[in-house]
């Protein structure tokens, strides 16, 4: 995949996370609210960074979909944090791909930092981590 395609894939992933955390926030427990808010803001910021990277390459950033499918019903704090963990885990491979193709150090650092951040957050939500986040397969 080209850098542009990889950036678009990561941007699409961030759009999904921004949408997903909206859903998470509606059902998260009070204790999780600060973490949900921080994650939501972080994904918005990364979304904007990726869009800027694409515009700098004269590419039109992909738009968010009106809605996204969620693999299970989010009805309470438990399912909300489960969705949050899944969002982060599914984002990880997109940033790993970006690390691999990024030719310039600024973009590689952006991608590596994002991979670290999403993995730390994933560990926070799920209580676990795989040895190689972004490279190991993501279970549903």
């Amino acid at each position, binding site marked *: 995949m080209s850098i542009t395609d990889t950036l678009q894939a990561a941007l699409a992933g961030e759009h999904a996370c921004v949408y997903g955390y909206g859903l998470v926030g509606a059902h998260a427990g009070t204790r999780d609210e600060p973490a949900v808010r921080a994650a939501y803001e972080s994904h918005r910021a990364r979304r904007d960074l990726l869009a800027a990277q694409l515009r700098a390459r004269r590419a039109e950033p992909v738009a968010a979909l009106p809605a996204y499918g969620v693999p299970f019903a989010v009805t309470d704090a438990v399912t909300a944090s489960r969705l949050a963990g899944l969002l982060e885990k599914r984002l990880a491979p997109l940033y790993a791909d970006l690390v*691999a193709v990024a030719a310039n150090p600024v973009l590689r650092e952006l991608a590596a930092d994002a991979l670290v951040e999403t*993995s730390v957050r994933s560990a926070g939500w799920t209580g676990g981590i*795989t040895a190689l986040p972004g490279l190991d397969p993501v279970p549903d």
Partner: protein
Amino acid sequence: MSYGVPVPRARVNRAARPSRRAVIVGAAAVSLTACTGDDSPPATDDPPPPKPDAVLRSRVAGAERTLLALYAATAARHPSLSERLLPFAVRHGRHLAVVETSGPTAPPVPSTSAPTASPGRTDGSPTPESVQTPDVSADLATAVAVLRAAERAAADDRIADCLNSVDGALAEILAAVAACEAAHEVLLGRQA
């Protein structure tokens, strides 16, 4: 209990296998070497310097061995922690295996050609024989705090290594290792 290096080999595949991209980059590097090689004057007796990524792999492998030794020593000092720490050590074992099989490593520099090596923290790569058994605090909370700090420092180092690696596939592996180690710091802080 000994942690050795329990590596679930079967799961190493994706990251250990050079990607098509890596193979292409590697082939390009080989053909460049071949082109310039003919014009070069005969080499002196000095062996060619190791490739930067090979040095990097050896350094990361050394860092992973040091972490494994710290986990083993911590589990030995605090047997009540050993079951909880085992999955962390297993993941470090995978890091070690994946990094070492991702491409060439630089052989350890003979001591005669490294007269300036100091006994403190060096940039050298601990080999399996050279990793010392670290001292572990008798206080359990302190011992866990040391592990957390080691994971945090390792994650920072791996990000720096990721940015310095030439091969994109190696950079990807190092970013993933950094991500795991940063997550380890969080997970170690969770359970008391």
